[in-house]
């Protein structure tokens, strides 16, 4: 289990390759999720991500431990960036390895739902017109109830 909270960029493909290769023949299924800075209208200059050093790592480690136990994960990885990110840049990724696909998918979705609403990150969008904090979505809070 590996949790990294970092300002530095990361390459999701390189991480996915290393994670998958590390599983050997124990795992039958690896799921990865990569979240990118979205800017469909091309109006974003950058996304600024603030976090709560210390609590961030604790909160994520607790979520990962919960997922690992519930879905018998063979391995899990969470990487989350903070600082200023350009449109299209990977913000974060989650990877899960399990014997079968249902566990790997469920654990990855659970981790994402918890990271969205329970890990202390705050996103701010900066455009030519100014800066605005991204509001939490009711959907994201609702998503937690299914677990």
């Amino acid at each position, binding site marked *: 289990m590996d949790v990294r909270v970092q300002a530095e960029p990361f390459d999701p493909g390189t991480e996915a390759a290393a994670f998958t290769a590390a599983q050997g023949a124990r795992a039958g299924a690896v799921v990865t999720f990569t*979240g990118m800075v979205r800017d469909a209208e091309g109006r974003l200059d950058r996304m600024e991500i*603030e*976090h*709560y050093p*210390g*609590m961030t790592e*604790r*909160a994520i480690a607790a979520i990962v431990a919960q997922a690992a136990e519930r879905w018998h994960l063979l391995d899990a990885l969470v990487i*989350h960036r903070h600082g200023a990110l350009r449109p299209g840049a990977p*913000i*974060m990724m989650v990877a899960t390895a399990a014997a079968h696909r249902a566990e790997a998918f469920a654990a990855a979705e659970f981790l*994402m739902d918890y*990271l*969205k*609403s*329970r*890990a*202390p*990150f*705050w*996103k*701010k969008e900066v455009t030519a017109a100014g800066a605005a*904090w*991204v*509001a*939490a979505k009711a959907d994201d*809070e609702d998503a937690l109830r299914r677990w």
Partner: protein
Amino acid sequence: MTVLDVLYFAWVRERVGAPRERVETAAKDVAALIAELRARSDGHEAAFADTAALRVAIDQELAEFDAPLAGAREVAFFPPMTGG
């Protein structure tokens, strides 16, 4: 009286005008602490005007507004989280 590190994040930090401050307080719970903090400045007042929009963590664990502060060393206020 105890001394707490009080931390602010995102727009709470911007309204208060500082990322953290040391606070000497006798507040028994989070709600009482908020009542004291609001009186500190117009910025604090703006930050705490709508507590429904706020979340709180005590010693880096999410907590409720009626949580006791006994033994606490660090209290953080911030908006709902938007990670992922």
